[in-house]
């Protein structure tokens, strides 16, 4: 019997072990995708980019935009055209894109957000061939997730600037999910007439959550069970247009991001009145509502007096576990 149990243990350990990491994958140093950090923030450039989303129907399945950065952290994204869009659809699409350019710049593009977790959760393979993108010779890389669904990215990196000039994202079934490609690229452009993005959500980093809780007199939640491979990267407060301040926890597995937001409001107010802001209609206390938005999911609700949001490209169970683990 003991022999059988030992054999079972050995078999289980073998099955539970992660796949063997490629040589050097565990090292942050030497990974070409980590050598430049987020080059968009450090290399002043202007370019037009084309985005394709094959799984999306309608006007927004393919569009072009102009990106401008000053290399000092300022940026501007201007939508140029959406293919197959009527005039009305384009007007609405352009408005939404302009309003959300802060979100798009931070969370849509391929960016390594946490080098340590990227090296741990994703494998990087250098392809032998090269590709010319926007007139620049680019090295090609294949990036694949080691845990969970094997999502992959094919990246074209300009070795000189560190800019990723093309990316193709595939889902676990090998289907193309999203594609981005620079059509033109101008380094050191004239920036005198650029209307830079101005953030309007008053985001402020939070150094200490307990100190914030003491200062505001509210109980701050913090998830204790994260999806596999994810870890915290930042905590901040943000304000929405309805006058609600949210405590936003951001997590990442190196590339993908996951958000947990809690409305910072007095306990009496959070008990369920309908006047506490937008987006809570139809969600009763003690319930959470799950929304599917393409590859992303959002869960919102009121639980035990707390207004909560969780958003990420992870499974529904993982988001629900995240919320449950945050409750006192």
């Amino acid at each position, binding site marked *: 019997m003991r022999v059988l149990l030992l054999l079972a243990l050995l078999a289980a350990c073998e099955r539970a072990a992660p796949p063997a990491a490629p040589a050097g994958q565990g090292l942050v140093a030497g990974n070409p995708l980590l050598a430049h950090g987020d080059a968009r923030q450090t290399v002043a450039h202007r370019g037009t980019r084309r985005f394709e*989303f094959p799984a999306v129907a309608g006007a927004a399945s393919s569009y072009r935009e102009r990106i401008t950065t000053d290399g000092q952290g300022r940026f501007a994204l201007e939508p140029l055209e959406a293919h197959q869009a009527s005039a009305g659809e384009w007007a609405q699409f352009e408005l939404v894109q302009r309003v959300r350019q802060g979100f798009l710049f931070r*969370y849509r593009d391929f960016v390594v957000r946490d080098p340590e977790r990227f090296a741990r959760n994703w494998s990087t393979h250098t392809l032998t061939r090269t590709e010319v993108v926007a007139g620049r010779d680019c090295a090609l890389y294949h990036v694949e997730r080691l845990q969970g669904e094997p999502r992959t990215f094919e990246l074209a990196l300009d070795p000189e600037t560190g800019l990723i000039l093309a990316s193709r994202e595939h889902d676990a079934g090998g289907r193309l999910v999203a594609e981005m490609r620079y059509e033109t690229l101008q380094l050191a452009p004239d920036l005198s007439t650029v209307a830079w993005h101005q953030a309007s959500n008053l985001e402020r980093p939070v150094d200490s959550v307990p100190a914030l809780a003491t200062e505001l007199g509210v109980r701050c939640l913090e998830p204790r069970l994260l999806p596999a491979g994810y870890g915290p990267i930042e905590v901040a407060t943000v304000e929405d*247009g309805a006058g609600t301040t949210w405590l936003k926890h951001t997590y990442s597995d190196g590339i993908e991001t996951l958000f947990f937001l809690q409305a910072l409001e007095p306990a009496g107010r959070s008990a369920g009145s309908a006047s506490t802001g937008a987006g809570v209609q139809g969600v009763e206390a003690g319930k959470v509502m799950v929304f599917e938005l393409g590859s*992303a999911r959002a869960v919102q609700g009121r*639980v035990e007096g707390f207004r909560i949001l969780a958003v990420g490209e992870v499974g529904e169970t993982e988001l629900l576990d995240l919320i449950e683990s945050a409750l006192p």
Partner: protein
Amino acid sequence: MRDSCLAFRSAWEHDERAASGHRDECAACQQWVAARERLCSALGALTRLTAPAALELAVARELSGDRSERLGRALQSLVRRGAPPELDERVAAWIGRADATDTEQRQEQRAGALRALDVQRAPDVLERLLREELEHPEQQQAERFTGSLPRLSAPAALAERLASSVRRRALMRLVTAPLAALAAAGLILWIALRTGVDERRPYRFQVVHASTLEPLDPTARALAESLGGGVPR
């Protein structure tokens, strides 16, 4: 102004780099370009104002078809009408009469209002505890204060028997305990991996699946759509 000047200025305003030849020949156009460049520079140096955060939410609501707050905004924008002066006079006169009422009468009214309130009874458990305390005070005290009784020590023979037994068991544990722990851990891991982790965990909340995105908070929607490629759904 000549036609060539007009053509140059129009071309310059469209793309300044494309129109350069005529400026070298025309002093008026040189001055015009210099003035335009000063204007651009001055405008570019102005501080850019930030749109209020409420605008984003209002735009999102309008785009999502939510017109529920239009009525509220329209009502808030109406000019507020003041009360007529006759009303103020009547209120002042009524308050004056109220001040003159008799103090005793007011106290009687208060006493009557207090008598009309519901009398709150003590909970039943309190009555039961009080009755038990009065009927058997020693027993109640013993039950509640056993911690204050003097503690008796165990006999020496018991300590010796325990020591020898502990030594024997320690030897056994040294050999068998690691093996047993290893086997138990392996069994748990094997069962967990064999059956998968599909079992639904009980949550302290009810989960509802949304059929539309309308109830979704605009902040959450913007974040989710940005993750999914920035494509509005």
